[in-house]
């Protein structure tokens, strides 16, 4: 589904990604871990097409197409979804309006009819249950005045509505208490299909108790320094990142 080869990227002239190579197949869950500043959030942003990051080398192929040539909205319409580490507040646009606009754009891109407001309300009822949100969230402005937990749940709600083929969760666990974490993980697990894939970017192993990865990759200094199965995450939890960084330097 996704082939990243020797990907390099800079922000404000500073090189953050220094040759990432990673292959993600449909049906799999990949965890990308690493210390602060290792480049894991940058990887997530680059895959979603954030304009602040400049790709300086390498290739990314998504379902056989050159992902890097696509605008962010085209990537989303093609099934890529980034759950933001810091979801953006948009005062003045209601959550319901925003979700329906996004949903319809994605339907249009798939050659499907736009949904009418009534059918959309039914769809929302179903999706809201998944992340245990109540109706009042729909009339509120997008993320405006939401608590940290509400914002993250709202990201997963958007994911549930848009049904992406490749979901990238950027530090979705940061700032969450255990109950919110469980709700978010439950949402992600419920949305898992053999036809879609998930990349979980996280600093801590904790989230991976709930969203069990097939592969774990450790990022340091803009490169993947170690890949393994889910046991690698436990090893990192016990030993920290330092031993890997030392190995990488050596």
């Amino acid at each position, binding site marked *: 589904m996704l082939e990243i080869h020797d990907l390099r990227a800079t922000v404000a002239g500073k090189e953050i990604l220094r040759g990432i190579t990673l292959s993600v197949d449909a049906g799999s869950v990949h965890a990308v871990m690493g210390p602060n500043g290792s480049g894991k959030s940058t990887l997530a942003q680059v895959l*979603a*097409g*954030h*304009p*602040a990051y400049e790709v300086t080398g390498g290739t990314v192929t998504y379902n056989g197409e050159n992902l890097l040539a696509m*605008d*962010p*909205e085209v*990537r*989303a*319409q093609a099934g890529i*979804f*980034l759950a*933001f580490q810091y*979801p*953006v507040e*948009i*005062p*003045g*646009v209601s959550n319901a309006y*925003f979700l329906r*606009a*996004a949903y319809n*754009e*994605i339907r249009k*891109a798939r050659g499907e009819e736009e949904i009418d407001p009534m059918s959309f309300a039914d769809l929302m009822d179903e999706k809201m249950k998944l992340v245990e949100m109540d109706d009042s969230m729909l009339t509120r*402005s997008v993320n405006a005045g939401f608590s940290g937990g509400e914002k993250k749940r709202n990201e997963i709600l*958007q994911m549930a509505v*848009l049904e992406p083929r490749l979901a990238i969760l950027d530090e979705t666990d940061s700032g969450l208490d255990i109950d919110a974490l469980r709700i978010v993980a439950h949402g992600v697990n419920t949305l898992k299909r053999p036809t879609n894939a998930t990349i979980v970017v996280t600093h801590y192993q904790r989230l991976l108790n709930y969203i069990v990865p097939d592969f774990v990759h450790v990022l340091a200094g803009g490169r993947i320094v170690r890949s393994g199965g889910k046991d690698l995450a436990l090893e990192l939890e016990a030993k920290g990142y330092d031993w890997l960084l030392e190995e990488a330097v050596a």
Partner: protein
Amino acid sequence: MIEPYLRSFEAFSANGGAAAPVWARSLRLSAITRFETLGFPTTHNEDWHFTSVSPILRGAFVPLTHTSGSVTPADLDPFAFSAAGWHTLVFVNGRYHAGLSGGEALPDGVHVMPLAQAYDELPILVEQHLGKIASFDAHTFTALNTAFINDGAVIHVTQNVELARPIHLLFVSDTAAARGTSQPRNLIVVDRHAKATVIESYAGVGEHEYFTNAVTEAVIGDGATLTHLKLQRESTQAFHVGTLDVRQGRDSHLFSFSFATGGALSRTNVYTELRGEGCGATLNGLYLGDDTQHIDHQTRIEHVEPNCYSRELYKGILDGASHGVFNGKVFVHPAAQKTDGKQTNNTLLLSERAQIDTKPQLEIFADDVKCTHGATVGRLDETSLFYMKSRGINARTARELLTYAFAADVLETIELDEVRHGLEAATLRRYTERT
């Protein structure tokens, strides 16, 4: 430049204005004298530094003395919030029009009538307040308006009456107003523990050049609440100067909203004095400019007594070569301890040629207060744009939605559903259906 007005005043005193009570004629005389002394402001005047009134002077507008019959109820529809049925007073070219006015009956204890009728039916109230709130000592346009006091609305909500539905004052100018000037003068008195919502709409039917110079005085009694919504949707060729001047009693509340989209050149003044303890004033507004429009707002909040709060949020979206001005002053008098004030002005510039002059000012003479102010000027937020695009929303739609959202954020503060929905829908159309 003031001569045409002085000549008109002589004719008016002998003619249309002759029926007014003696005190009113005397008030007008002192106002025209003051107007003659002051003259029109230049940009050397601090209050007019960013707004040149020379286009108004070039217009050589003549005072309008009678209504035109060409306005129909259908013409008013776009400004009437689709048959909301509110009690409405319509003024055509500055003169009360009984045929177009009406709407639902008023509850007991609420009096709404044109000024000429109020001279007879509410003589004490009118004499007590008219010309006592809006000082013309330093304000040329208020002096000019006062000199030509002749028509407008008087609203009196008596003690303990809570008016559930708004009163709409609709001032329209039609083709007969071309080259003319109207000077509407309104008085709103909300007695102790009463509550009212008043909408003042200024609108043009057709595109032509005229000059509206309106003054509204309002008194909010102890524990009373006034919601005042001013909607300035004049012809884009028109000139508009409008002043709201308010006096607040103890524990009273004012919510003022100024929506300004019309006029070639407009200036809205919103002034309030918090003259009792425990008052609150919220002054919000939204200005939407395009082409070569000039839209100026000046606000002044006087904290005279302790333990009052004021909140101010003015937002603007400027496109084309439009020019916005925001000049907001908050004065905290020495006795006004524990004042809690917050003032914000945010402007979104959609074009390279659009500009804003913003000047939020705090003058604090008390030592135990909490006051903040700030202004931002900018373009659409790139992070928000990316967030929307990352959800599949195309770039153009994302820009349009964010532009609308910038305005909707302050429109949300209008509690009256019909007006909030009406302005939201109009703003959404304005920014999402452009070709």
